[in-house]
């Protein structure tokens, strides 16, 4: 094991002096002011409850999952929350797999305390059968890249993941009401957790000179600091927890100043998290439409091979759309047809454009038959699919393109559908306006 230690990074005296001297003139090595945070990016994964946060060079991933377990004896009516931290060896050459180090345990405890003691996550709503079955929420935090200030980044990742997590809905059944039926996501929509407030951790670093204090220290600054404090506050101004484990002594006034700063920063970060979660939720809603459409489309339309079939389906889809408005039925019908077109187009175009630019995908809207007919006419029937030896050319740009394909055409093309979803009652009252709007493109196309 000595070999590993031999490869870990050691800071030179020059670096240390440089950082301290620069801080005397309120300059930090990466150009920030002492009280500035690094750039924060919050991204979400495909599943509900998985988030990836980048704070400068620090990269953290959090995954939330839930299981039905027995509750603690002292709290039979409450669900449980557990935080597991993984300091992956990929984050830092000095992180070793196996037993968690004390900084990993400390990080887990800080996040846990911020969530549990302040009752940020409503645990009573997680109870299913009092005393027997409750939802046990588990947060796994994986540190992917250690660029300094892991606590703040991990906290933000955990909060973002909790906000986007959805647990399956379950109901009590059976003769005595004691049997728990967990509904799969296809049957009933999973429901989000109830989060009362967002406790944001803000880390301060103190140096040997008493006047110097920084927020969000980087990895290099962390090696120079003599004292560190993490204050977990929420946007309402409540202090959820303070962690100052040893290190240099700090004056009370400085601490109060820190708490005030933390309050300001918490407000900023809370706004950023909420924005990111909003965007994710809208994308999720759009994806749900698409998911329904694809799962139904395959049953409906066998093999989407020839161009004529596509045209027929198009005409059929427009008929469907008009029928839909009259009946004000579920929007799956409309989504089905548009999903069909989308998947048809995707398959047709992907086999056609082997080696061609995949930027074509962005153009294919689901509700513009003109473009579809033009593209079909210029490229003939899709017979390549039938060849056994054919394989699709997939480029690196495809996933981002596909994402934009799904979000923009569904956004543009299905605006009408969304209006319909939101205004089914109005539709029942005024079907004529919508019908006219929808028929115009089909009339011009036909």
């Amino acid at each position, binding site marked *: 094991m000595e070999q590993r230690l031999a490869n870990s990074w050691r800071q030179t005296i020059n670096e240390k002096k440089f950082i301290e001297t620069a801080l005397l003139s309120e300059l930090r090595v990466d150009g920030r002011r002492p009280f500035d945070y690094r750039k924060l990016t919050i991204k979400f994964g495909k599943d509900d409850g998985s988030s990836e946060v980048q704070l400068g060079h620090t990269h953290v991933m959090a995954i939330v999952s839930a299981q039905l377990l027995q509750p603690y004896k002292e709290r039979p009516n409450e669900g449980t929350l557990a935080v597991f931290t993984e300091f992956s060896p990929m984050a830092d050459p000095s992180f070793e797999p196996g037993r968690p180090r004390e900084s990993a345990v400390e990080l887990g405890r800080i996040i846990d305390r911020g969530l549990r003691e302040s009752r940020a996550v409503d645990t009573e709503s997680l109870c299913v059968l009092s005393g027997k079955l409750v939802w046990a929420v588990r947060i796994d935090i994986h540190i992917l890249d250690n660029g300094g200030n892991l606590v703040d980044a991990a906290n933000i990742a955990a909060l973002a993941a909790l906000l986007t997590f959805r647990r399956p809905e379950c109901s009590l059944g059976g003769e005595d009401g004691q049997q728990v039926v967990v509904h799969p996501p296809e049957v009933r929509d999973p429901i989000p957790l109830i989060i009362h407030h967002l406790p944001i951790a803000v880390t301060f670093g103190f140096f040997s000179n008493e006047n110097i204090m920084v927020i969000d220290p980087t990895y290099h600054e962390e090696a120079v600091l003599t004292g560190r404090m993490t204050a977990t506050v929420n946007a309402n101004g409540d202090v959820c927890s303070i962690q100052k484990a040893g290190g240099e002594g700090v004056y009370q006034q400085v601490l109060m100043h820190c708490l005030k700063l933390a309050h300001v920063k918490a407000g900023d970060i809370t706004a950023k998290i909420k924005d990111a979660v909003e965007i994710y939720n809208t994308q999720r809603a759009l994806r749900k439409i698409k998911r329904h459409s694809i799962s139904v489309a395959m049953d409906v339309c066998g093999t989407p091979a020839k161009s004529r079939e596509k045209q027929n389906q198009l005409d059929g889809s427009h008929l469907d759309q008009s029928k839909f408005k009259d009946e004000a039925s579920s929007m799956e019908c409309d989504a089905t047809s548009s999903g069909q077109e989308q998947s048809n187009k995707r398959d047709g175009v992907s086999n056609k454009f082997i080696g061609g630019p995949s930027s074509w995908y962005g153009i294919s809207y689901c509700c513009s038959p003109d473009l579809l007919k033009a593209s079909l006419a210029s490229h003939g029937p899709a017979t390549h699919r039938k060849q056994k030896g054919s394989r699709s050319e997939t480029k690196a740009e*495809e996933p981002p393109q596909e994402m934009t394909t799904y979000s923009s055409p569904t956004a543009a093309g299905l605006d009408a559908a969304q209006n319909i979803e939101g205004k089914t009652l109005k539709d029942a009252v005024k079907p004529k306006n919508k019908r006219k709007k929808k028929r115009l493109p089909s009339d011009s196309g036909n």
Partner: protein
Amino acid sequence: MEIERPDGRSPNQLRPLACSRSILHRAHGSATWSQGDTKVVAAVYGPKAGTRKNENPEKASFEVVWKPKTGQIGKAEREYEMILKRTLESICIRSIYPNTTTSVIVQVVHDDGALLPCAINAACAALVDAGIPLRHLAVAICCSVADNGYIFLDPNKQEEEKMKAFSYLVFPNLNVSVLPERSTQKGGEPTAHGIITSVTHGAMSVDDYLHCLERGRAVSARLSEFLRKNIEPKSSSESSKAG
């Protein structure tokens, strides 16, 4: 006669591939690889001094750490680590840095079928990003055999569960192995015809397995083209990462 897959692909069609390199700052080399929804992050820490106790000190050795998305590390993870280690050992030139250990850490971000091939591809890209000397690249593919005998490439999780059997195949990719498009000639290629790794689950007939190998090799040309394009250096002056 078309066989329909739930997401509308043809039997020989892969899911959309995506690869990005140098995503981590502390690691010497890193890459993410995603096939459809399956996404894996791999990081490499370049040769460190010393080898573990049971390793041969005359050669460079590898250490693989597999991190699942959630849960405890169990036997399945250990098996993946072992397979990955042996695969990577065979593609690297081990005689260059004797008595060193290179660590490869794999983190599963999302598992939607064909996880091990995705991880092998990611690890290979990460090794290139770190500058570890390799004999050749490795491309991995998953071929599955359905009950009716049809072979489907790159199944997702739902398909994997329904299949009778599936196999993970890893093929080498030499620098002269870029085949012309839709070429069916087998003879006259100056490439190696070996398989680096083959892991099978479930029972399939010998013929089925040989068909899987054929299909896998045919697709590996496409995959290796994609891999090669992605690992080309973005700029001529890429700084080295020495920790």
